[in-house]
C-alpha cells in the first residue's frame, strides 16, 4: 500500500512563529486531507486539498500531486495550535492512509 511520511515528527515553537509541515507519499493519489488532533484527542478536518493551494485564516495548505507531497503552513502560531497534525492521502476506493503525524507544541 501507499507509504506516508510526515516531517518533522516533533516541532516546538514560540507563540507568533511560523512553521511548515511536510507530507510525502509514495503513490498517485486522488486527493489529500489534513487533520489536527487537539490535546483532548478530537480530530478536526483542516483541509481537503487534491491539488493547488487553499487558505483558511492563519493556515494554508499546498499539494503538488505530481511530485507526491503536500505542505501545511501555520503562520503567527498560537498556543491553541498545539496538538498533532496528520496528513492522509486518499487512494482508490476512498481509502485514506494516515501518516504518523507531527507533534506541535506552541509555547506562550
Amino acid at each position, binding site marked *: *500500500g501507499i507509504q506516508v511520511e510526515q516531517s518533522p515528527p516533533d516541532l516546538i515553537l514560540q507563540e507568533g512563529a511560523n512553521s511548515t509541515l511536510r507530507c510525502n507519499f509514495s503513490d498517485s493519489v*486522488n486527493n489529500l486531507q489534513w487533520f489536527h488532533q487537539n490535546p483532548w484527542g478530537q480530530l478536526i*478536518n483542516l483541509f*481537503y486539498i487534491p491539488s493547488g493551494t487553499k487558505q483558511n485564516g492563519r493556515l494554508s495548505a499546498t499539494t503538488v500531486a505530481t511530485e507526491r507531497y503536500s505542505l501545511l503552513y501555520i503562520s503567527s502560531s498560537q498556543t491553541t495550535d498545539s496538538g498533532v497534525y496528520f496528513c*492522509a492521502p486518499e487512494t482508490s476506493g*476512498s481509502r*485514506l492512509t*494516515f*501518516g504518523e503525524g507531527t507533534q506541535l507544541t506552541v509555547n506562550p
Partner: protein
Amino acid sequence: DAGITQSPRHKVTETGTPVTLRCHQTENHRYMYWYRQDPGHGLRLIHYSYGVKDTDKGEVSDGYSVSRSKTEDFLLTLESATSSQTSVYFCAIKEGYGSPLHFGNGTRLTVT
C-alpha cells in the same frame, strides 16, 4: 460538528470476551470507517463501508469484523478481545467520493 456518535466512550473488558463498538451518524453519508490509534502508529484503518452491507478490509483487520445493516450505523466487533486490541478506536464518515472525512470522538478500549 458532524453528527457522529460513538458508544461506549470508554470500556474495560477481559481477554477472550466479545466486544461491540457502535458508530451512529445522522448525516446520511455513504462512507463509514473504523480506525485505531496507537502510540507510534498514527491512525490505522481496520474496516470501512461504502454502503449498506458493503464493507471492505483495511490494513489491520485481523481479529475484527464489521456490519452495516443501516446507513446510519456501523458496528465493529472484536470476537475474542486480546490485550493487543487495547487502543483508541475512531469512527469516521464521508459523504461520497471527493469529500472531507469527519471523525467521531473515539472509544477508549482497555483489554485486561
